[in-house]
């Protein structure tokens, strides 16, 4: 064992909310470590506040006034005597300043060092770092070239290519070019558009990957020089760059590709001397060429699918690494056992362009039984506020085979009851019924370009409709009868207390 300082962790402050805060609280409890939650005004009754051993209020609902306030969070840790901070994902998880400040305070930051966070946080420095370790990048040119050089480079890269503005954003100054002939005009148009939009006409090109998949590798590295990967996750089911469904393993990854991509992922992490859990995100084209996209220097939303097929607890492993211990495992995980699928259950309306939905969750009854895991941060009675993201739960199922995991997911989605806010369970049900998804044939554009709710939703049968109509009618009827009773209180001859309890009985 190398000479690494062993540090004790007895109490962890979780600088987050929602399901990931719950996930980390549970990991700490499994390890017998105390927990401190933090909360904004609207989160007083949130699940993570209820389950933490201690809870500190840190301000108004807006993240910038609470969950993003480094000073308040560090102050909360000091006040409660926490010796470590886990940032979760989002909020301050990939903020190098925060990691630095936490360390400067003599606290343990459960995550990578500030230098690795900042190197991987900047797209350009990340590309430079991993390139030095031989990690393949999406072919393209540097910025600042003359048109002739760009055209020569494009011929070498092969079409189609994307012309992108250096100062770009929002699609401005961006062009898809399918052949050499159209390139000069496209460059001209893009430059002029970028010039007028951003005052900077500089452009570069990048190979356009058609039908590519988003596949990522889980990385773990400790302070003793060990870096391993824990297999891949398939995350191509996305909408507007938001992942909706993830699975492990990927139908697209064979043993050879897993080994090659795994080596690449380890090399990418080692290029910044990475320590703790992280993820290497890649695009993989139809011919199984893969290209580094970026590294996420934190625990991912979708980490449970990896845990379930490799029998590892990533959150606990993070804490172990942060303590300065060697990881439990020193070999990469090459053989997934069975299959795991995760559906992100979001408060958004799939029938109405996925508009987020806020309000009170009246009923939250999660599926149970074999092969089902639910990670959530809500309960019957909790409020979905507009201040934070719309994910309310993660539903993960496992099976010996992908088919079994899929069938379980269908069953679990049916069993899940959430009322009070609109949610995307109907989307997932339709997805699980779609032939392309079942066959594993999809890429990162598939949901947006080829999936519609209508296509995969068989209309209800006449019989179903009749049952639902009967239930609606009986429900309304009873409510009206009850209302009629209530406006005639004189007819009661029992005490108020008794009458109230009867009223409650009727309502049950």
């Amino acid at each position, binding site marked *: 064992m190398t000479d690494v300082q062993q540090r004790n962790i007895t109490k962890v402050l979780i600088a987050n909310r929602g399901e990931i805060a719950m996930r980390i609280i549970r990991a700490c409890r499994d390890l017998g470590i105390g927990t401190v939650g933090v909360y904004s005004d609207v989160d007083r009754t949130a699940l993570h506040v209820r389950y933490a051993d201690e809870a500190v209020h840190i301000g108004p609902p807006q993240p910038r006034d609470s969950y993003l306030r480094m000073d308040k969070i560090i102050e909360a840790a000091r006040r409660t005597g926490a010796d470590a901070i886990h940032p979760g994902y989002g909020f301050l998880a990939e903020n190098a300043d925060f990691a630095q400040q936490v360390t400067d305070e003599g606290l343990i930051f459960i995550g990578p060092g500030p230098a690795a966070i900042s190197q991987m946080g900047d797209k350009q420095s990340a590309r430079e770092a991993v390139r030095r370790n031989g990690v393949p990048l999406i072919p393209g040119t540097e910025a600042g070239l003359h048109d002739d050089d760009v055209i020569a480079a494009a011929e070498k890269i092969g079409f189609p290519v994307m012309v992108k503005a250096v100062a770009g954003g929002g699609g401005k100054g961006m062009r898809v070019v399918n052949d050499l002939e159209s390139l000069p005009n496209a460059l001209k148009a893009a430059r002029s558009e970028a010039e007028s939009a951003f005052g900077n006409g500089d452009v570069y090109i990048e190979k356009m990957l058609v039908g590519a998949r988003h596949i990522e590798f889980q990385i773990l590295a400790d302070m003793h020089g060990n870096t391993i990967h824990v297999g891949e996750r398939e995350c191509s089911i996305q909408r507007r760059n938001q992942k909706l469904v993830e699975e492990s393993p990927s139908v697209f990854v064979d043993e050879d590709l897993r080994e090659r991509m795994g080596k690449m992922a380890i090399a990418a992490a080692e290029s910044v001397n990475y320590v703790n859990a992280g993820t290497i995100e890649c695009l993989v084209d139809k011919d199984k060429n893969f290209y580094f996209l970026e590294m996420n220097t934190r625990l991912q939303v979708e980490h449970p699918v990896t845990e379930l097929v490799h029998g590892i607890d990533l959150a606990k492993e993070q804490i172990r690494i942060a303590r300065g211990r060697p990881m439990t495992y020193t070999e990469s995980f090459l053989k997934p056992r069975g299959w795991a699928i995760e559906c992100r259950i979001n408060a958004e309306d799939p029938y109405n*362009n996925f508009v*987020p939905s806020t309000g009170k969750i009246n009923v939250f009854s999660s599926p149970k039984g074999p092969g089902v895991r639910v990670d959530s941060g809500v309960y019957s009675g909790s409020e979905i506020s*507009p*201040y934070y993201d719309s994910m309310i739960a993660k539903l993960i199922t496992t099976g010996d085979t992908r088919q079994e995991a899929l069938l379980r997911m269908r069953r679990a989605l049916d069993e899940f009851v959430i009322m009070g806010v609109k949610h995307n369970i109907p989307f997932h049900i339709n997805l699980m019924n779609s032939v392309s998804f079942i066959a594993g044939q999809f890429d990162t554009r598939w949901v947006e370009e080829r999936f519609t709710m209508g296509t995969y939703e068989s209309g209800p049968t006449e019989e179903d409709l009749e049952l639902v109509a009967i239930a609606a009618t009986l429900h309304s009827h009873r409510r009206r009868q009850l209302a009629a009773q209530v406006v005639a209180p004189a007819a009661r001859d029992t005490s108020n207390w008794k009458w109230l309890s009867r009223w409650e009985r009727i309502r049950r």
Partner: protein
Amino acid sequence: MKYTTIINNKTFEIEIQRDGSLLVNDKVIHVDFLNLDTSLYSLIIDNRSIELAIDETDGITELLVNGRLFEAQVLDERALFMANRRGTLGVSSGEIKSPMPGLIVEVRIGAGDTVAEGDTVIILESMKMQNELKAPISGTISEVAVKAGQTVEKNTSLVTITPDE
């Protein structure tokens, strides 16, 4: 009691008889309908067992069955008469309300414009996302109650569309 229940644009005539049995489109049906907890219900008809979560707000009954949501309108005789007189029976409302608090980023239409069902009318930023609000029906914009830059509460009326005759 007689009710007219509209669901997915289909109309069911349902009468609740004195003995608790139902006449559904003139067919006698025996039902076993129980409230389990808050808005959870169990319905058994002819051995078929289904569980529903039911909520009623503003005259619309929402029913969730096996992950699928249905919206029903249940009208008693008086309500049916009124709805027929106003001509609002089974017609979707042309009012677009804000589904959550947020910031109006863009208003794509003005009063007097014609829109088709599904056209994007307003972009609302909320929960870190830009959300497109679409026209629920085809018609002419009769009112635009907000402008870009304005913050709105949940359920604020944003745009009203008068359906084409």
